[in-house]
């Protein structure tokens, strides 16, 4: 079946290339914004600088870049829309041969929702909470007089079916808060498709979803746009995702084009260094280490925990971690992996079970742990922004554990802080700055230094790289590995990102809905035979291969046929 769609699609493509002009033709697009801090002069900043591309009918162009690369802004320009103070300051955007930037308000309204539709990252916020999903899905088709209400409703039901939504004929009766995040994202795609547009702008449609949900939504989107021959601009920060769905890819950085070519070329033979680094982003790999045969540093025995005493968040978990090694706890939202960290730190006393540190049980409650026990177990957070007091300087932030645990003061303390700053590759010049003056990656480095200052045996890393752009995240992981080698510190790594797990773990624990599904050495956990959940989880992680999605889907179909 996927073979036959491929053929029709190729046929379409050849037809379309003959018939000029292109559907969308963006020439020398410039977008700027006026930013004003109270009490300061307005700054004009350039968000997008001289971007040009063409999109043929029925084709998909992937726009990829890190946060701040200007990709969403470019996507919205195809609808002549500037979000939050952004202003299109130069260039042309031709849609079906007409320059839509020169249109007046009324003509632009004839484009939006009719010729070009939009799918937002957070469907939960983008749907109006006051109206039924069905009414919102058919709204633009009705408003622009494209269909009658009966036709539109029938078509919407078809789309719901096509996108794999449950009970397609009743789905439209529901309100946004009554369905799940993955379903909302599909409903938003249905909403975009409902007025049969020529082009859909997908703005990170799967970024907010869990990886096992992402693959379904991604497959649904791919299926739907192919079936309807709709062209798309697919915006994402994840190159592996965009490789599955697009015909061409444009790589963006700081509002400028880095590289623009076919998906095949970008993935298999990237020309620019930046693109190469994106393609090979997970190069870091911790060498395999022997598991030492002594008392584990951390041992968790039959832990059960709950926030309210009723709903069990963790049930009967047992794990262990040796000194100088890394244990990754991997799972999706609701798996209980962060709760695990809270139990180990003493923030959430367990209901049952023991936490042993170097063979001695740790008191369940934080209050009852002594200073030495606290010192040896440090924590690094996901959001470095809020993990540091914004009113304290870097000196105060890193200096406090030195003072608190080791009684260092004055010049001695400052010397040690500088030493730590050098260790995390930042250096002395940062010592008197405030967190707000640092970039995301630099902030996370400061948090690492603060943890290291306590000379801990174990650092709990709670999603420490998830808020960072991939290249920055990679640097942080390298730093963590280097520090581990240097100081023999153990990491308890909480993450949802399989690639990170592969890169840094010695042992891996897979969690699902509060239970431990799989636990063991990295090589053992990541190789078959798998249990059902681990199989689903591992196979759902996008890989940097052109036909990864199709392969996975067909193998899953075969499996379910076989069962």
């Amino acid at each position, binding site marked *: 079946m996927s073979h036959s769609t491929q053929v029709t699609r190729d046929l379409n493509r050849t037809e379309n290339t003959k018939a000029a002009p292109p559907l969308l033709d963006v020439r020398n697009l410039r977008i700027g914004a006026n930013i004003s801090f109270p009490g300061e002069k307005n700054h004009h900043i350039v968000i997008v600088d001289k971007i040009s591309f063409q999109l043929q009918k029925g084709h998909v162009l992937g726009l990829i870049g890190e946060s701040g690369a200007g990709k969403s802004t470019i996507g919205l320009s195809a609808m002549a829309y500037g979000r939050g103070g952004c202003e299109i300051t130069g260039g042309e955007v031709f849609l079906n041969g007409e320059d839509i930037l020169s249109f007046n308000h009324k003509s632009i309204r004839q484009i939006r929702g009719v010729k070009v539709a939009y799918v937002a990252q957070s469907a939960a916020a983008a749907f109006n909470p006051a109206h039924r999903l069905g009414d919102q899905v058919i709204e633009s088709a009705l408003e622009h007089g494209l269909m009658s209400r009966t036709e539109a409703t029938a078509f919407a039901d078809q789309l719901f079916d096509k996108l794999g939504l449950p009970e397609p004929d009743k789905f439209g009766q529901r309100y946004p808060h009554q369905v799940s995040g993955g379903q909302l994202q599909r409903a938003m795609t249905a909403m975009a498709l409902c007025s049969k547009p020529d082009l859909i702008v997908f703005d990170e449609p799967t970024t907010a979803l869990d990886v096992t949900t992402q693959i379904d939504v991604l497959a649904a989107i791919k299926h739907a746009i192919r079936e309807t021959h709709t062209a798309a601009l697919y915006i994402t920060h994840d190159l592996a995702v965009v490789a599955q769905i697009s015909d061409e890819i444009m790589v963006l950085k700081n509002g400028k084009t880095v590289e623009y070519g076919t998906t095949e070329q970008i993935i298999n033979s990237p020309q620019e260094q930046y693109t190469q680094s994106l393609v090979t982003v997970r190069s870091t790999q911790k060498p395999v280490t022997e598991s030492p045969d002594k008392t584990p540093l951390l041992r968790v025995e039959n832990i059960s925990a709950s926030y309210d005493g009723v709903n069990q968040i963790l049930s009967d978990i047992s794990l262990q971690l040796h000194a100088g090694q890394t244990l990754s706890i991997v799972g999706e939202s609701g798996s209980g992996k962060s709760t695990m960290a809270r139990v180990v*730190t003493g923030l959430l006393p367990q209901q049952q079970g023991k936490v042993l540190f170097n063979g001695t049980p740790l008191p369940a409650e934080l209050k009852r742990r002594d200073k030495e026990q*606290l010192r040896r177990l440090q*924590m690094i957070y996901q959001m470095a922004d809020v993990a540091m*007091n*914004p*009113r304290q300087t870097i000196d105060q932030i890193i200096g406090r554990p030195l003072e608190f645990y080791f009684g260092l003061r004055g010049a001695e303390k400052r010397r040690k802080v500088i030493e730590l700053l050098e260790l995390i590759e930042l250096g002395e010049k940062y010592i008197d700055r*405030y967190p*707000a003056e640092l970039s995301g990656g630099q902030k996370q480095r400061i948090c690492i230094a603060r943890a290291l200052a306590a000379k801990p045996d174990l650092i709990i890393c709670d999603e420490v790289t998830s808020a960072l752009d991939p290249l920055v995240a990679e640097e942080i992981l390298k730093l963590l590995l280097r520090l581990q080698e240097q100081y023999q510190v153990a990491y308890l790594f909480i993450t949802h990102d399989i690639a990170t797990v592969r890169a840094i773990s010695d042992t891996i624990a897979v969690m699902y809905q509060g239970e431990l599904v799989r636990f063991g050495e990295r090589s053992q956990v990541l190789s078959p035979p798998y249990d059902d959940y681990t199989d689903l989880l591992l196979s759902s992680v996008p890989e940097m291969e052109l036909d990864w999605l199709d392969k996975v889907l067909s193998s899953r179909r075969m499996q379910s046929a076989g069962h």
Partner: protein
Amino acid sequence: MLVRVANGAWAGLFGLMSNALEKRSIMLVHLSWGARLGLLGLIVFAGSAIFAPWVAPYGPDEVVGDVWEPISAQFWLGTDQIGRDLLTRLIYGARNTFFVAGAATLLSFFMGSFLGFLAAVRGGIIDQSLSRLNDLMMAIPTLIFALVVLSVLPVNMLTLILVMGVLDSTRVFRLSRAVAVDIAVLDFVEAARLRGEKTLWIIFREILPNALTPLFAEFGLRFAFAVLFLSTLSFLGLGIQPPEADWGSMVKENKDGIVFGIPAALIPAGAIAILTISINLVVDSILSRTTSLKGGRG
């Protein structure tokens, strides 16, 4: 000359406070023209209240002219219902207004923010009982509550300060508790807990520095409100009692002139308006330039 000294003192004080709060983001040079105007108003009023005996042209109870004389070179703002100089009365009245409103605001702040922080940090039953009691107090309009209580208590400055302070502390409680609760859930507070820091260290070193800006702004708003509230009570005859006078009671004394077209009552009323507008201008500027948790610049 005196005004300039006062000016300097206030600017210095304000500079110090804001420096402590924002390190370098609020400085006088950065203030909008509205805020500067407001600050100037505050300085003039506070300065003339402090230096009343030197600034005022006559004695406060001295009958110097006819009843309700119009504005003239001799009486810059005219005279009142028994022939006292209005400007002089205004300057001395400012002392009562500032003192009672200021003392009540300070009281409400110490009570409200202490209990608010306590509720936020201790949580549990302490938080529950304090918060419910506070909800109860806030369910009665402040003016009505004050009137009910003043029907049985002797009306004097101490009673006024206590009643206004206690009633107003409910608002401060709610704000400081909310601010502290918001900060207490942030990771850096959790990090401090995990480090093993004591409750007092967490309150004073982690939470308080981040709560100062909203609390400082609230202090301004509460003071403006206290000025209005005291003036209202005095206007109703239940505030500052004669022979003492504040701006509100001056409105009451002179209100009978209005129907004859004599604007004497409007002068103290206008003074109250200018004072509260000045405070609001300054506060507005502080609130618009800082969001509570950005730190550093911005």
